[in-house]
């Protein structure tokens, strides 16, 4: 299939890339634009490791075609703090022990961010629902829920 020239606005920066129409946002972010914080795990929408935020909503980038999301605000984990200066939500993940192998963490943090941006004081059930599509084998989720609630408290 012929490449299409598209414009993607990622973390506030406009990128122009040539992509075949069947290329997923996950592939374009990682392979063409270098946003490798977006993790490639199941590739079929089961695990949530590739979660990004598009126009304020948590979205699976492995099930999103790159050509679909022109003109939209795409946020990846790189939009938050870096390793030296984590933002408050990332710091809560670290402090609460919500990070182990770290492979699910960027997607988990972004699902949490999408929740907190829309609902800064979520109930426990709302936190659980927000990460129900993000799988984690290491933690058993309790510390992830705790981290998101901790961030909500610190943000208020």
């Amino acid at each position, binding site marked *: 299939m012929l490449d299409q020239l598209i414009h993607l606005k990622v973390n506030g920066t406009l990128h122009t890339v040539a992509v075949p129409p069947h290329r997923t946002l996950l592939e374009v972010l990682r392979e063409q634009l270098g946003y490798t914080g977006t993790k490639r*795990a*199941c590739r079929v929408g*089961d695990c949530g490791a590739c979660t990004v935020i598009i126009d304020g909503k948590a979205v699976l980038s492995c099930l999103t075609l790159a050509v679909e999301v022109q003109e939209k605000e795409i946020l990846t984990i790189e939009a938050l703090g870096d*390793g030296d200066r984590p933002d408050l939500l990332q710091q809560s993940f670290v402090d609460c022990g919500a990070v182990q*192998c770290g492979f699910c963490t960027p997607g988990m943090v972004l699902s949490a961010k999408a929740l907190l941006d829309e609902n800064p004081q979520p109930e426990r059930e709302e936190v659980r629902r927000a990460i129900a599509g993000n799988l*984690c084998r290491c*933690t*058993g989720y*309790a*510390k992830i829920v705790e981290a998101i609630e901790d961030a909500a408290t610190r943000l208020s």
Partner: protein
Amino acid sequence: MSEYAVLGKRLPRVDGPVKAAGTARFTDDLSLPGMLHGKILRSPHAHARILRIDTTLAESHPGVRAVIVGEDFGDYRYGLKPDTRDEYPLARGKVRYLGEEVAAVAAVDEDTALEALELIQVDYEVLQAVTDPEEALREGAPLIHDDKPGNISVHMKTSFGDVDEAFRQADYIREDRFYSQSVLHGFLEPNAALALWEAPNRITIWASKQSPYFLYRNLSNCFNVPLSNVRLIQPYIGGGFGGKNGGYPVDFCAVMLSKKSGRPVRIVLTMEEVLSSHRRRHPMIVWLKTGVKKDGTLLAHDCRIIADGGAGTGVGPSTIANAFYFLNLPYVVPNVRFDGIRAYTNRPISVAQRGNGIQQIRFAADVQLDMIAEDLGRDPVEIREKNGAYTGYKTTSGMHVKSCGLRETITEAIRAAEWETHYRPWREKMHEPLGRIATGVGIACNSFESGARLTGHNCCTAVIKVHEDGTVSLLTGSTDSGQGSETVLAMIVAEVLGTRLEDVFVPQTDSSVTPVDPGSFGSRVSSTAGNAVLIAAKDAKQQLLKVAAELLKADPDTIEFRDRKVFVREAPERSLRFRDLARQTVAWGSGTTVIGQGSWGQSIPPLNFETGEGDAGGAYSFGTQAAWVEVDTRTGKVTVPRMVVAHDLGFALNPLAVEGQHEGSIAGGVGHTIYEHCVEENGQNLTPNLTAYGLPTVYDLPEEMVSLSIETIDPVGAFGAKESGEGTQVSTIPAIVNAIHNAIGVWITDLPVTPEKVLKALRDKKAQARATTEGQP
């Protein structure tokens, strides 16, 4: 002031910030200029002879740079021991399981590589497949390996004490059959490798390996390259749990494709490939006969197991041996007989998974112990307290228990579980009607080896470099696959040198730089590498002390290192900053370099795969778990809203990391008990994605998990520490199964506990009750 400045504190992990920021690089995040993408062609049959492979079309496909098949690797085979080398990088002559690797392609992008796979023509002669281990052992069953008669991969037959006499003396004997299913490691990062071959004979490989030095040796042998020329650099690892130990086809193929194409090659498996064809936990059938006295005292186990090994041996001998070892602990069982067979089948290869062989055996033994308690009208807590091992106990088979807090773990677990309030034996509530939601509680105990002792190279080594600005580098070959060992080892360095955790940097394993290490398995790292790090840190400290004594004009024995300061203990005002000491030491005399070194290995004989005599590890952890369950009697669905782990881990080096291990253990254990399964039909995988497979989501796991650490200060482990990340998954299954019985009065002996099995068990129970009533006059 606590005895320790750093250890024992809830310190967040050192790699937390980069992981939360997404800047931690995993294998799939790495690329090199000119890199090609590799893909693997897999067998569509569970058992077939390969008659012909034609790669001509694939090779001429535009964008393809290399195509390889089994012949490219010559006769190279790999495996744990010389007599168990039954795996090929790519199939030779035959395929033995669905999805076995047959050929591989490197191309300019993944799409091209996938197209090329479709152009490889393979002619198969389909053979009868045998996917059931009992079928595989029957006479006349199709042979999976021509040189392995009877499809026997491992057979361990052993006995200690006088089992027959013990059964003669027993007041009560029970025999049951248990089955534990096939479950996967469940890591989210699929196996991946990026390889670069440089002529004439240098290999550099970035691969997701929890025990990278297995692959380092494998590659040296496979490619006939000296070990000094194998550079294995370990990126961050997205979970391992036993499924990223050795070399796998993905690694060998990446190197061979690079060698053939002259370009770097990266292969990243899909989750479907992992779920269909990668290694997994041994499915196991356990027949267990147990004899007890009237008061519940255990006299003997007579145990037979058949493990489904899949088409290769892997680390199978250690799995079977572990099953035997942990018939002997956590309870005192004076007479034990064991007959364990690991059968070859036409299924993916079974290997170690968090608990390696022990989950399956403790599921059987600890559920049967509850059955016995119920039969004898005894209390499940009391029967465990009565039979529990203790400090100084030596099993009949020769395992030495040097520290044991089992009884304390029972006490703490039932206290946290509010056992007295919630537990009523089934026999007391069996006549009450079951409501829509029936609730129950259950407990089970565990023990686990803290630092497995394998054959061959066994010790861990650490090298500590003190930089002139007072920061420190710790070089270790022990990898952190997510469990937090990097943080814990760095804490040991900071404690001994009196620096802060953030002053210690632990570069990731690089076989050209870091010392050779057995790997992160058998709960070795904190206990074994921990001791090596302790020795190395003391060595570095000694070198600094000499200069400190001169500068402070004090006897070295009176000098203390703490919180970035070096001072005279009785006169703290006589002090200097650690960084100043480092700088002065480096410039002392004609100059020096502070490098500490330490090696440590368990001073016990290697695991005995033949008789099981002796120790399984340097020390043993002990623990108790309690589970609450809710059983929906209309749908059969079981949920576990709350779970308690009380674990004798010797000493909690970092309580935050320990809690993470306990909670993660519960997650894997609950998954194994209730949700996870590989469903296969005619050799085809019907659960090729994480949803169908059943990896638990946040809604599937206990909302409340209580983690309690019992500290017994073990004489062997570093600072008295024992393992806390594997034993904790061993008793999750029986605690839940016992709780289910307590809720609805049925024993589920066949995992996983699906709603169908629960409903069937309830129906059978009702029918049986009706038959009994009708049968009465």
